């Protein structure tokens, strides 16, 4: 049994539902005067960020502190730490300091997997986003947000997302969020459609458990949730699309398009949003847009993951992934 969280694909349906249910209880802590639980007292968690990501780091830090863990923030960006050997050196340093868990964000796909499977360190490894590979806690918080909005807080307990239709739009090629969401949403029974210009879809996508479309307008009326991915302007320079204007005309979500979604459908975005590119201000600021909720839910989900992986003498989350598929 693995004791790390590396990929959303590693979670079984029951694992994922347990995490969502636990997060629902964790969310209630946020409503209390003292937003703190003693659960991880005496445990040391390192936030090891090789890539800038203030929002993810803060979210993990809030979750860790609410569970009373000792938190060490290690930002490796810009320091001498940038080449391969240093991941090992850093890991061994942390191991020597006796850390219990490492929350790692790294620009190289597979770095958390490598950390978890190497003999560099013994701590629990939680992937906070690696390259263009995975970002499992993002997928979990997205699923949590969908379940709350589409099924209900209490009605959702114990439930998955069976039959819900989720459309993910944007730069799938470079998106760990898209990969994680496809894996987790499929596991939870949702039907996922990816919409992007063909240049921003990876070769090999045909093996993913989802539909692929180039036509946003066709997908919208059939969606319970529409997740817009950030599209970096630099992509334009590498000829992934001709101009910003053309991109937002074809794949951006504006008020007219949002009106074509079913009434109950929500608009999601992992942030940070590029307003005017993939989403207009009108949509971003509408009550159907869950961006702010997603941020709050992120803390609850990360508390749940930390508790389930670190709260006992062994993790409560089983993994199905084997060393070599």
């Amino acid at each position, binding site marked *: 049994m693995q004791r790390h969280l590396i990929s959303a694909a590693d979670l*079984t349906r029951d694992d994922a539902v347990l995490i969502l*249910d636990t997060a629902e209880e964790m969310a209630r802590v946020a409503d209390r005067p*003292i937003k703190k639980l003693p*659960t991880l007292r005496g445990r040391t968690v390192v936030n090891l960020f090789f890539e800038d990501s203030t929002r993810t780091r803060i979210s993990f830090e809030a979750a860790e502190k609410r569970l009373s863990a000792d938190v060490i923030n290690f930002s490796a960006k810009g320091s001498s730490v940038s080449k391969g050997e240093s991941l090992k050196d850093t890991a061994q340093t942390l191991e020597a300091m006796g850390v219990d868990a490492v929350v790692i964000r790294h620009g190289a796909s597979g770095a958390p997997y490598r950390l978890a499977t190497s003999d560099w360190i013994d701590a629990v490894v939680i992937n906070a986003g690696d390259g263009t590979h995975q970002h499992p806690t993002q997928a979990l918080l997205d699923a949590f947000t969908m379940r709350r909005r589409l099924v209900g807080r209490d009605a959702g307990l114990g439930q998955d997302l069976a039959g819900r239709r989720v459309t993910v739009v944007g730069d799938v090629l470079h998106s760990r969020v898209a990969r994680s969401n496809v894996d987790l949403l499929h596991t939870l029974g949702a039907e996922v459609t990816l919409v992007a210009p063909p240049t921003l879809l990876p070769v090999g996508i045909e093996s993913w458990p989802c539909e692929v479309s180039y036509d946003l307008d066709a997908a919208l009326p059939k969606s319970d949730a529409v997740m817009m991915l950030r599209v970096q302007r630099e992509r334009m320079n590498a000829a992934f699309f001709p101009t910003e204007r053309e991109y937002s005309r074809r794949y951006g979500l504006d008020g007219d398009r949002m009106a074509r979604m079913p009434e109950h459908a929500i608009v999601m975005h992992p942030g940070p949003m590029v307003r005017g590119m993939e989403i207009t201000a009108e949509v971003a600021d509408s009550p159907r847009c869950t961006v702010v909720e997603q941020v709050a839910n992120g803390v609850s989900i990360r508390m749940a993951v930390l*508790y389930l992986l670190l*709260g*006992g003498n062994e993790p409560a989350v*089983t993994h199905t992934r084997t060393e070599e598929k």
Partner: protein
Amino acid sequence: MDKFDKLDKLDTVDGKLDTTDGIDRQDPLAASRAAEARPVLEGPDIARVLTRIAHEIVERAKGADDVVLLGIPTRGVFLAQRLAVKLEQITERGIPVGSLDITMYRDDLRMHPPRALARTEIPGDGIDGRLVVLVDDVLFSGRTIRAALDALNDIGRPRAVQLAVLVDRGHRELPIRADYVGKNLPTSLRETVKVQLAEEDGRDTVLLGAKPATAGESQH
């Protein structure tokens, strides 16, 4: 996950800290052995002692004006709800009732895999300045109540905290006592006490059984 389901179920049956009845978690026959246990309280007995406790609460709390009942999941919550009904009958007033999950405050978290969390539901007016009566099914080592007091501390500042339990089986490990006891049940550490309630188990009964000889874990 299979493992967790089992644990969750055990938690509701016998896994809670001071209701641990010593049934070996790995032993598939444990449940049937426990089923052979001897009943010490039956349905009518349970109803009677809850009525008595309700009257005692009203008496000691001088009308129970500011009482808030907080049950400790799983069975403590059902007992609290039953007590609330009885208190309402006696006082003809609504009695706030809620639940207090103590999982995250346990002192043995690192001795087991993480447990599924139960609901903490504090009544709308909160607990500040109120008389909180904690309700649980079995009082044993006292560690659950210690955890509950810690949990309460993070939620508010009651005027006073009291404890009501259906069964006190002795063997305290902390300086904790119950204010209201349904039945004092002197037990040996070799024995198990198991409370079953209609809401969860389909029937009301308290069973006293023998701990299997092969019990794998140390008990509190």
